[in-house]
């Protein structure tokens, strides 16, 4: 069993379309008990049993941490992904029994901060839904800057404005509204912590500008789940368990290892937490590293791989699993 991934038996209590791309799912415990406590920024891994396939995707909890009668996640439909979000949108209905992991937080608030400055892009708004609820309940000092493509795709922008009024600033791409990032970062009081969640380009931009403007790295927090990318199928040999298996086009290496009956540790399944780090024993081919955990040196060495998001192309791959 994987570290921190004790399972919860839940039932889908509600499915709510939010806009043309995003749907919200509500989960309650099948035994009627309260769900485990979580803090703003936590995610759960949702098991999607789709015919013979099982996908496990992480989603941020977006409800208030003060209410553990139910968990809510919001899923953006990705028509060109590996199919996890499409499964959620097409097949998940109220009453469906599902299995999710205990919550894990890799994007928690630093509660020593004097002020929390939050930057969200698109569906990256979800962890901030929980964090703002948590802070608002404690009288915390926060400000959220939220960039979305259009007003109609500004998921929960209306809810946030209604709850927090002027603490929420909205920027619409179609109206050419842009965050004045340098000015924003240069005018924050000492003791401010910065949180960013959104597309990779946005996260990199914000981190680069914050570093250049003298923000210490420990005050800059980001969440970047890399969804596993599809790719060419390849074979993998698991030396410790003595198994060889095929990784399909739409399957992640970690999912293939699990399908072969081996259970490596994991937490985020998004290339950030480091739990599933795996040693490479030998290989003939090239790695496609997609994680944010290993160093560039590790990537070049050919000695390690993060099977949750990274792939391989070539003749043979032997892992220490």
């Amino acid at each position, binding site marked *: 069993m994987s570290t921190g991934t004790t399972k919860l038996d839940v039932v889908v209590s509600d499915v709510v379309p939010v806009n043309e791309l995003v749907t919200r799912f509500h989960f309650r415990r099948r035994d009627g008990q309260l769900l485990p406590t979580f803090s703003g920024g936590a995610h759960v891994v949702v098991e999607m049993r789709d015919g013979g396939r099982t996908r496990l995707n992480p989603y941020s909890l977006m409800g208030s941490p003060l209410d553990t009668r139910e968990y809510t996640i919001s899923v953006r439909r990705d028509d060109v992904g590996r199919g996890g979000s499409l499964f959620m949108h097409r097949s998940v209905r109220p009453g469906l029994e599902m299995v999710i992991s205990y919550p894990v937080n890799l994007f928690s608030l630093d509660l020593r901060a*004097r002020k929390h400055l939050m930057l969200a892009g698109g569906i990256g708004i979800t962890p901030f839904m929980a964090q703002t609820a948590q802070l608002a309940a404690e009288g915390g000092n926060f400000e959220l800057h939220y960039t979305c493509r259009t007003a109609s795709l500004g998921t929960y922008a209306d809810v946030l404005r209604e709850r927090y009024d002027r603490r929420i600033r909205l920027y619409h791409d179609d109206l050419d509204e842009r965050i004045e990032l340098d000015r924003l*970062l*240069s005018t924050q009081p*000492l003791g401010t912590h910065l949180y960013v969640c959104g597309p990779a380009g946005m996260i990199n931009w914000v981190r680069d500008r914050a570093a*250049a*403007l*003298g923000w210490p790295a*420990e*005050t800059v927090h980001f969440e970047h789940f890399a969804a596993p990318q599809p790719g060419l199928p390849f074979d993998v040999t698991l030396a410790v368990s003595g198994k060889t298996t095929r990784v399909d086009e739409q399957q992640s290496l970690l999912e293939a290892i699990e399908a072969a009956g081996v259970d490596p540790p994991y937490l985020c399944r998004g290339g950030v937490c480091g739990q599933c780090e795996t040693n490479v024993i030998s290989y003939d081919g090239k790695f496609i590293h997609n994680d944010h955990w290993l160093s560039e040196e590790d990537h070049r060495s050919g000695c390690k791989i993060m099977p949750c998001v990274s792939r391989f192309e070539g003749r043979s791959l032997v892992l220490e699993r």
Partner: protein
Amino acid sequence: MAAKSIISRPVYGTLSPQPGKHHLFIADAEGALAISDMAGRAPAGFFDGAEIDFIPGPGGKHIAALEALKPAQFHQAPSFASLLPRLKQTLANAHMGLRLYLAGTEGLIGQAMQVALEAGIDHTSIQTEHRGSLARRMQCVHCKGITENVTTQPATCAHCGLLLLVRDHYSRRVAAFQGVCINAEDRSEIPPMEEIFR
């Protein structure tokens, strides 16, 4: 250079120029040399956005060397206490992006860090370099009095007079090493006093 002992005992590094536009240096005595040394590794124009607050101490040296760096502001103070109002004011008006550099004696680094922590700066975000005296600021754990410039082991509390073992146990909150009564069982037992924090 202070040796690593227990986890709360502060360890100091070597000042290194950080990214950003606003840099605040607090130094005393030979701490000035840490700033001069760092200046050699700093990019051109680095001190255009820098303030140096310097406590020269009795020797009165190194002032010209710091002025030669042409910081945007240079301020001298006769003691940390006299610098304190200015430091508090500077930090109260500062924004994220201000980087703090502390160089010199442990007492100076500790007290400046204490003010910075109160202003919301994390201790891990502060550049420090120890130069000069190892004399300690000590808090008596019994009467809570602070004794400055302790150089001996054991040391006498300047407030309650107890003979104290000066521990490596350090409090960032009070910016002092902890002093614990060394002869609580038998006050007639007086261990020899050695000067070890020079």
